[in-house]
């Protein structure tokens, strides 16, 4: 792990020589790229390219190899090394993620699922909560109000009291997105946000990704298979294959990159 904590002024996340092995398999191999502040950044690659593994290395679910570096500009504006930090501390830095297979609590109402996103923002002690002291009650009420605002922003305010179990996939995805917004993140990592959505829902998703970026002033990193979505909303894209860096650039640069065309976009018709 390098101790060098320097980043360009406009960068928010910087990966340097990120590698991870699973036994003999090199899932991510010496990957370096950086994301600029307020950017919508796409990470693409065919199945098994190691995209989700990269996510897991950034969020410290996996421990990357020696020499890997993941620098992040935190909420306070300082640059921190994420490698080696406990998983549950990552969100405190201002980095939050969604999951490929929406991970929500079925037995809880939507609003409580969203409130879990505010877990780190609760200041009152366990004792104050157990006795429901005025300070704890006020805090809970404030957080609930904030959660309602986020739900309204996502357009599912009227469902707040419904259980998550039984909600359609599109709604679940919105709940998961709402949950990430509770902590006022600097960077949101979306793991295949369009998977399982129909055309209209995907369109709405693209809209809401823009809105989230603009309203919450955050950067977005997404992994996605839906090329149309990636090409239409991303400012820049990084392509990887078998854990290795291939190319990085704007959507049009990527579309014209012969290596990328061949490896990821297949036939020219689909690459338009």
């Amino acid at each position: 792990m390098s101790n060098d904590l320097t980043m360009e002024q406009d960068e928010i996340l910087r990966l340097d020589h990120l590698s991870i092995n699973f036994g003999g398999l090199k899932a991510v191999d010496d990957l370096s790229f950086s994301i600029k502040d307020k950017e919508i950044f796409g990470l693409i690659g065919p199945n098994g390219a190691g995209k989700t593994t990269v996510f897991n290395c950034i969020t410290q679910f996996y421990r990357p190899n020696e020499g890997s570096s993941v620098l992040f500009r935190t909420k306070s504006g300082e640059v921190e090394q994420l490698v080696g930090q406990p998983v549950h501390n990552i969100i405190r830095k201002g980095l939050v993620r969604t999951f490929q297979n929406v991970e929500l609590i079925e037995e809880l109402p939507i609003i409580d699922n969203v409130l879990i996103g505010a877990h780190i923002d609760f200041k009152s002690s366990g004792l104050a909560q157990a006795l429901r002291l005025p300070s704890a009650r006020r805090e809970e009420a404030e957080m609930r109000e904030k959660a309602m605002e986020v739900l309204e922003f996502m357009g599912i305010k009227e469902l707040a009291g419904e259980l998550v179990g039984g909600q359609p996939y599109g709604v679940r995805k919105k709940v998961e997105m709402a949950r990430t917004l509770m902590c006022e993140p600097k960077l949101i990592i979306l793991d295949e946000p369009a998977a399982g959505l129909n055309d209209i829902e995907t369109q709405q998703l693209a809209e809401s990704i823009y809105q989230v970026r603009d309203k919450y002033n955050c950067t977005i990193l997404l992994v996605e298979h839906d090329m149309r979505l990636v090409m239409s909303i991303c400012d820049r894209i990084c392509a990887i294959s078998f854990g290795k860096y291939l190319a990085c650039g704007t959507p049009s640069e990527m579309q014209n990159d012969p290596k990328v065309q061949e490896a990821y976009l297949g036939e020219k018709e689909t690459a338009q």
Partner: protein
Amino acid sequence: MNSKSTKTYLSYIIFGVVLAALPLLVSTGIIKTSWVGIIGGTIIYAIAGLGLNLLLGYSGLISLGTAGFMGLGAYISAYISGDLGLPWELGMLLAIVIPLAFGILIGLASLRMEGLYLGIVTLCVSEILRKTFDELEPITGGFSGKKADFPTLFGVIELDQNTTYILLVVVLVLLMILTYNLANGQLGRALHAMRGSQVAAQAMGVSLLKYRLIAFALATAYASLAGALYVHFIRFVYPSTWTLSVSLVIMALVVIGGLRSIFGTFIGAVIVYALPDLLLKNIPVIGDINGLSYIFSGVLIILVVLFYPGGVVNLFSSIGNKFKKNDSSAATLATAADAAGETPVAAATTEGTEASNE
């Protein structure tokens, strides 16, 4: 939200008042004296059940060690207030704090184990404790058991069986309120998150170590408190009381009553603990079968898991919903609004889920 919690508190307090009226009914001769002992026992089981519900229901972690910790609480309290002659309150405090330390150790172990393995480890701890009760004669009295007195509050108020029973009711109601607060706040959501998905919980900043320790600490504290109350209510304790079957009965009452339901835990305790004693034993022939209550709760668990996974408490709310739905669908027909047709049903289900959370 605020009015909802006030309503819930009120329902717990009314429930407590009704329970506390039992000795009065006994004195008028409407019900038998033995009921005070049986319902008192039910309350003690419900207290331990509330703790296990936090662990099993909310956090999704298993423990077969409830009995051991109840026993530990019972012996510590009996020793401190009896043999050492120290105040009853101090005995209760230590009877909670010492087992709590054990609970935290198990919580540490739980980070490395899941499901069955965790069950086996907690069972082993419980059995080790039981063996210790057997052997540690100077403190526990060994096989012959240990005597204790009814509590003396603040060194002056000496309680008898009926007033101790009322003390049990007060403690139960306080714990119900406490559990409700914990379960419906940040802590409860963190436990929920841990059960729902460990990865998502961690991504949201929930430290698995911290909340597993908290869950085990709470379950142990409730269990040892229940044990300490037991010894001062029954006034006698044997090592052979704290076997696996007690742990299983408490787990059964949590599952039958309703996971993550506070009233459900008490209903479960009534069904599993009180009903066999009050009703089944009076049935001719069948009532004489040894271990009938185990057969009864075994069959019930199967039925509940098959037909009412939410527990018996859901039976009540779904009956309630049926009435509400009928009412509201009639109302909707009257206004005959197409789009509005969904709202009353949705409202009814929401109320149903709220009810089951209480």
